[in-house]
């Protein structure tokens, strides 16, 4: 699939923002007044920036309000509704905390639950795709959730939970790479099933339907960059998981170390998200003799 910068930014930033909201809602993050306000503004800002970025990949962004209507069937619609429901609930929690010094546990729990549900809905947009076998796995929502929560814990300065969550994210990511590489073959779609011509013999595309690119090739078939995927996996994994754990290992981290851990994690997550899209192969490529 084409790794569109707007979608990578959206899923990464809003994932961090909603993860931070979940963590703060669960009672993480020490401080009051300005410190609390900064935490909350960061969470809302990241989630808001991510949601804004998501508008940039729409063909008709001014009609975005219509996307709230089909929550019965569409994960994208559910995500939009949950995201918009989370913001005011967390906003109320944030206002009470930073202005009145009052942390209402019930309100925080509700905000955390909504934030987690939003990230889950985002991940299900991809996990539901039968046409992209690599994504169609329970590991997709698991990785999205752990990425979001570990990023949130890092931002909230919760060293111990962040280390545990990052380790879990690392294990899930490794399992997903190990198993994901075989999912396309396991799904059973080949040029033979795509054309129904398997009985005639070994198939190859003799002439493509068009000599130039089209929407399908631009969007669904990705060749450039995949050959670097092994190296990028190493870079992304090291930056997103290994470096933050190593930086936080000594225990009480100062602001500089914690900042470096957050920076490494965000850069690593952007690389991993880029790979999430670039490595995903759509079955339509079979009609073009490409992946």
């Amino acid at each position, binding site marked *: 699939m084409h790794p569109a910068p707007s979608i990578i930014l959206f899923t990464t930033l809003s994932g961090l923002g909603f993860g931070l909201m979940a963590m703060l809602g669960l009672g993480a993050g020490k401080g009051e007044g300005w410190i609390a306000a900064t935490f909350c503004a960061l969470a809302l800002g990241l989630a808001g920036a991510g949601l804004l970025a998501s508008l940039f990949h729409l*063909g008709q962004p001014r009609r975005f309000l219509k996307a709230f209507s*089909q929550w019965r069937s569409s994960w994208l619609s559910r995500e939009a509704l949950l995201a918009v429901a989370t913001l005011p609930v967390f906003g109320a929690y944030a206002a009470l905390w930073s202005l009145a010094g009052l942390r209402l546990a019930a309100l925080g729990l509700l905000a955390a639950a909504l934030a987690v549900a939003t990230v889950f809905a985002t991940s299900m947009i991809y996990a539901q795709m039968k046409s992209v076998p690599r994504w169609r796995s329970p590991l997709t929502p698991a990785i999205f959730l752990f990425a979001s929560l570990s990023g949130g814990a890092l931002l909230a300065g919760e060293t111990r939970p962040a280390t545990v969550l990052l380790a879990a994210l690392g294990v899930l990511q490794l399992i997903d790479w190990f198993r994901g590489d075989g999912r396309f073959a396991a799904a059973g779609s080949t040029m033979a*099933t795509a054309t*129904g*011509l398997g009985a005639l013999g070994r198939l190859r595309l003799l002439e493509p339907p068009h000599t130039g690119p089209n*929407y399908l090739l631009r969007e*669904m078939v990705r060749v450039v960059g995949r050959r670097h995927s092994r190296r990028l996996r190493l870079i992304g994994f090291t930056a997103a998981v290994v470096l933050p754990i190593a930086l936080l290992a000594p225990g009480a981290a100062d602001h500089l170390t914690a900042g470096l851990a957050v920076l490494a994690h965000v850069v690593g997550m952007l690389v991993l998200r880029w790979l999430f899209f670039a490595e995903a192969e759509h*079955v339509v490529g079979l*009609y073009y003799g490409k992946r």
Partner: protein
Amino acid sequence: MTSLPASTERSLGLVIDLDTCVGCHACVVSCKEWNTANYGAPLSDQDAYGARPSGTFLNRVHSFEAVPESGGEVPRVVHFPRSCLHCADAPCVTVCPTGASYKRTEDGIVLVNEADCIGCGLCAWACPYGARELDRAAGVMKKCTLCVDRIENPNIPEIDRQPACVRACPAGARHFGDLADPGSPAAKLVAARGGFDLMPEQGTRPVNKYLPPREPVDLLAPLLDPLPQSAGGFLGWLDRALDKF
């Protein structure tokens, strides 16, 4: 509503005969011509006369070569038109966040209400067949409508009330009909020729069916005089003389 109907009264669709398709792309051109000028936003082209032309099409013809596993036999070329299959379990419909994509209860045609489409592209991702293309100029999703503005159009001659691709096909490789009615000519053709689904493992239950290529039979060859292998007279002398030379 982007929930799929439990059943449809009719299942209108196409039957495409891979045995008779000659790969002329007339269906592609006629589809583009009709659908750029009628229902919905035009099918735009970008850089149409430049070095990297690209455009929106609702129908594409691929050409595949099959090399028999047994070896020794001549490879076969099969031309393969690809368009929306109007699936009973259309994954493109249920992912739509706005309700723009829908499947008609009366005849099963999968359509896009362009006024509601936000151009998110998710339906095109969900389709395993590449049937949907986002139009760059209009920013909305385009797909085969089975020419809804032809098949029920009282303003055009009755013979033209079928999809433009079917009307244009010079080889008679495309058939249009109600595939839910076992008595329809299209459904009978599917039954007689062993029509099949594309990517059945995707669980989409396509309405459109494809007919497999038949065994190659050259009907005329046995009726023709064999080509002469040797000549008499002056040409025969010349042939022998040149052989010795």
